[in-house]
C-alpha cells in the first residue's frame, strides 16, 4: 500500500467491512430468534417509522432527554459557578460533589420511582441526577484553573468584578464547559435510558423489552440504531460547539 487512504475513508471502510461480516455471519450462523442481519434491520427501521406508538415512544424519550439535559446544564452551571468561584466553597464543597459523583445513582432508582412516580418525571429526575455532576465539576474546575496573571492584569487595568466575570472568567471557562456538556449528554442518556428500561410501562424501554421477549431482534436493533443515531448526532453537535466556541483558545 503506497498511498494511504484518507482516514475518514478508511473508517467508513472498516464500518462497511464490519457490517458485511455481521450480515454474512447473521445469515449463515445466527439464530434468527436472537440475531438479525443489518439488511433486515434497515427494513425494520422503515417499517417501525410507520407505527404511531413507536414514533410516540421515541418522541417521548427525546423530550425526556431534552428536559433532563437542559435542567442538568442550567443547574450544573449555577452550582458549578457557586462552588468554583469562591475559594472557600470550592475547598469545602468540591470533595462533597466528587464523592456524590462517584456514588452510583443506579441503586436509588427505586427511590426516584417512589418519589416521582412511573411517568416522565422520574426518568427526567434520574437523568438529571446523572447529568448534573459532570457539568458542575467541569464548570467548577474551569473557573478555578484561570492563570492568576490574567486576573491580576485585568484588575490592574481597572476591571470591576462584573467585567472580570464577563471578559476573563467566562471566556476562559468555555472549553471545559463544553467538555462538561458532552460528558453530561452521555450521562443523561445513560440515566434516562436506564430508567426507561427499569420502568418499562411506556416509551422506548417498553418496546425494547417487548421485542426481546417476543424474539423480534430486527425491531430491537432498529430501535437501538435510531437511538444510537440520535445519540451520535447530539454528541457530534456538542463536539462541534466545543471546537467552534473555543477556537480563539490557542
Amino acid at each position, binding site marked *: 500500500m503506497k498511498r494511504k487512504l484518507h482516514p475518514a475513508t478508511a473508517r467508513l471502510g472498516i464500518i462497511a467491512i464490519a457490517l458485511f461480516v455481521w450480515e454474512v455471519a447473521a445469515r449463515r450462523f445466527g439464530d434468527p430468534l436472537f440475531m438479525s442481519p443489518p439488511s433486515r434491520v434497515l427494513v425494520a427501521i422503515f417499517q417501525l417509522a410507520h407505527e404511531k406508538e413507536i414514533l410516540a415512544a421515541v418522541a417521548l424519550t427525546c423530550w425526556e432527554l431534552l428536559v433532563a439535559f437542559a435542567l442538568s446544564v442550567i443547574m450544573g452551571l449555577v452550582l458549578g459557578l457557586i462552588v468554583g468561584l469562591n475559594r472557600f466553597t470550592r475547598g*469545602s464543597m468540591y470533595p462533597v460533589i466528587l464523592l456524590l459523583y462517584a456514588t452510583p445513582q443506579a441503586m436509588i432508582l427505586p*427511590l426516584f*420511582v417512589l418519589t416521582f412516580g412511573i411517568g416522565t418525571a422520574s426518568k427526567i429526575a434520574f437523568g438529571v441526577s446523572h447529568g448534573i455532576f459532570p457539568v458542575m465539576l467541569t464548570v467548577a474546575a474551569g473557573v478555578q484553573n484561570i492563570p492568576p496573571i490574567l486576573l491580576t492584569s485585568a484588575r490592574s487595568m481597572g476591571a470591576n468584578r462584573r467585567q472580570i466575570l464577563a471578559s476573563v472568567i467566562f471566556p476562559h471557562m468555555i472549553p471545559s464547559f463544553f467538555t462538561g456538556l458532552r460528558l453530561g449528554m452521555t450521562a443523561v442518556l445513560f440515566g434516562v435510558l436506564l430508567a426507561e428500561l427499569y420502568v418499562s410501562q411506556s416509551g422506548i424501554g417498553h418496546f425494547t423489552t417487548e421485542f426481546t421477549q417476543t424474539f423480534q431482534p430486527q425491531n430491537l436493533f432498529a430501535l437501538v440504531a435510531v437511538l444510537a443515531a440520535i445519540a451520535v448526532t447530539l454528541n457530534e453537535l456538542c463536539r462541534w460547539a466545543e471546537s467552534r466556541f473555543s477556537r480563539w483558545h490557542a
Partner: protein
Amino acid sequence: MNSSRLAQRLVQLGFLGAVVLAWYLTTMQGHINPLLLPPLGSVYREFVSLLETGQFWPDLRTTLYELAIAFLLAAGAGTLIGYTVSRSGYAIKVFDPLFAGLYAIPTILLFPLYVLFFGIGPASKIAMGATIAFFPVVLHTTSGLSYVKEAYVTAARSMGASPRQMFWNVMLPAAFPVLLTGLRMGLILAFLSILGTETIASFSGLGHQIVELGENMDTAKMFAYIVFVICIAFLLNAAVSFAEARGQRDLA
C-alpha cells in the same frame, strides 16, 4: 491556611449534619410517609443488623465478582487495543473517532439483548460492564500514549534506548496519569452499569437486593442497603485513589 482547611472540614461535616438532621426531623413528626423516607432510627437499626448478621455477603460477593471480571476484561482489552492503535499516527486518525463515536452510543439499550445472549445470571452483567468500561480505557490509552512529548522520545532514542526500554522507561511513565484516568473512569462506569443492570434484570447482587426490598415496600432495609453500597463505593474510590498515588510515586 490551616485554619481555613479546618473551616472547610467543618463545613463538610456541617453539610452532612444538616442532611441527617433534616432527615431526622422530617421523619420524626410523621410529615412524610415512612414508605418514602423511613425514620432515621429504623434505618440505623436495619443497618446494624445487616452488618451483624452478615446477610449482605452473597450479594456483595456476586456484585464484586462481576465488577472484577468486567473490569479486568475491559482494562486488558482496552489497554492492549489502545496500545496497538497508538503505534501509528494513521491508525489513531482512523480508530480514535470510531471509538469516540461508539462510546457515545448508549450501550445500555442493548442490555435486553445481552440477557438473551448471556442469560440472566452474572454473565450478562459482566458483558455489559465490560462493554461500557472498555471505551474510556481504550480512548485514554490511545491519547495518553500518543501525546508523549516528542523531546522525551527523541532524547531516549538518541541515547540508544531499545523499544522495550522506550516503552517501560519513557512512554509508560509519561502517559501514566492519563492511563489511570481512563482506568478509573472504566472502573466507575463498570460499577455503575453492573448495579444498574442488576436492578433491571437479575436474581442476585446488591442492585437486585435493593430493588426487591423497594418493591416489597421494605424501605428501612432498602435504605440500609443503600447506605451499605455507598460505603462500598466510597471504599472502592479510596482504594483507586490510593493505587493512583502509589503508582505515580513508584514511577516517578
